[in-house]
């Protein structure tokens, strides 16, 4: 078969172009494909809904620009939900660039809801030390956090004074791209202090979190951009993640087609031999 022989020697750049078109076209001409909400995403939403007004939620931005596409949409949607529910947001990060990226979402959402820095939300920036820092943080926040990300002493801010140990934290949401990240929060914080933890992870990390979900160590999970899109649906603010879901679905269909085609060609080759 000539077609199969030509496909065998297909220039890989043709595949790159097809993938690029499969991403670009649905963005310019949205298809509006449905986004189903899964139970792990709904569980985080429900837990936030149940928290009383004024409860403290730690949002740990444990990612960097390399994972921004997957985790910033989840940060935006989650922070928005917290402010709508009048919860107090305590942002930090185990990765240097995380709190800076998260701060953009924090400031934007805070301005929309008329929230005041230091009272309704705070950003204490990057906290180095991984596991050792988390253990200390739960025991006595003052041991590891003395100032916010701009250098203002933490004790001069009402929310800074209110959070002294893990007992003052009602929920931890970690936006996690690797190590240190969600596993450290589970093992060194949840196991020791019992604070409930939810997570949004990169797609690559998501399958590793399911054992923690089934053991109840994680309240819920937002896996990759799809998880962020689910949370956007839940909080009814269809933004960047939902906009990307059409492209995601079309590219997946294209890749499935490539895999099937590749296997057919392989079978043809074997028979020809």
């Amino acid at each position, binding site marked *: 078969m000539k077609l199969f022989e030509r496909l065998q020697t297909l220039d890989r750049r043709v595949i790159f172009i097809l*993938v*690029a078109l499969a991403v670009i076209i649905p*963005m*310019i001409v949205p298809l509006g494909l449905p986004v189903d909400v899964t139970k792990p995403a709904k569980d985080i939403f429900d837990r936030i809904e149940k928290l009383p007004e004024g409860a403290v939620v730690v949002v740990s931005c444990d990612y960097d620009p390399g994972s921004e*596409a997957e985790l910033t949409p989840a940060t935006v949607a989650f922070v928005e939900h917290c402010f709508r529910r009048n919860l107090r947001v305590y942002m930090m990060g185990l990765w240097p660039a995380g709190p800076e990226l998260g701060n953009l979402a924090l400031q934007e959402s805070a301005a929309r809801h008329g929230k005041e820095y230091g009272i309704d939300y705070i950003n204490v920036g990057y906290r180095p030390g991984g596991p050792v820092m988390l253990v200390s943080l739960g025991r006595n926040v003052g041991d590891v956090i003395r100032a916010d990300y701009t250098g203002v002493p933490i004790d001069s801010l009402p929310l800074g004074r209110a959070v002294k140990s893990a007992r003052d934290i009602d929920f931890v949401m970690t936006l996690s791209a690797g190590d240190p990240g969600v596993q450290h929060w589970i*093992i060194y914080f949840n196991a020791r202090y019992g604070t409930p933890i939810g997570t949004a992870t990169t797609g*690559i990390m998501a399958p590793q979190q399911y054992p923690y979900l089934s*053991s109840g*160590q994680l309240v819920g999970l937002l896996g990759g951009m799809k998880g962020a899109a689910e949370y956007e649906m839940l909080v009814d603010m269809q933004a960047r993640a939902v906009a990307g879901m059409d492209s995601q679905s079309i590219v997946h269909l294209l890749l499935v087609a490539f895999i099937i085609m590749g296997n057919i060609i392989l079978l043809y080759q074997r028979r020809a031999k």
Partner: protein
Amino acid sequence: MLTSIGIWIAALLTLAIYSFLYKDNPVYKIAENIFVGVSAGYWAVVLWFNYAWPNLFEPLIMRGNIVYLIPVAIGLMMFAPLIPRISWLIRIPLTFTMGVAMALVILQRIQGEIFPQLQATFLPLRGVGPVELISNLLIIFGVISTLVYFYFSRAHKGVLGLFAKLGIWFMMVAFGASFGYTVMARISLLIGRIYFLLHNWLHLI
């Protein structure tokens, strides 16, 4: 104005990196070298302001706390192999680091990972609905058969071999799920970049 310049630089560097998909070229090389240089500078600043200065130099120099000379001495011992006569000194910082890490990791891993994960496999097989029963059986057999696969003290024959084969199947399903998620993640990154180009740069969407 500054934002616009930043967006233009980011957009052009994105295109420069993607130009590699066509073939290796000087524009890609320039973008790659800029990335390496900026990363090195960025990490140097991060390490200085978040580790070295607040944890060592600030208390030592600004507050005159000479106790911090002990970690300085231990840290310097890491360079001991450079002088063969005192190379044995490296054992001190390595032993210290291993001791602290083991104390922290072993205790917390047992408490925070092994016990809860083990507990999560103690699932009821009676008094549950059919869907939950199938799910519980899958988890129980999945854990047992995968563990059997990694039991190498006896040949995988008979019942043991059967379970080991089942373990392989469970692992294959897990690898498939991981691969699927990996594809999704990589495409998400591409979507993120193209969204940036079309939305922030070209204002097409």
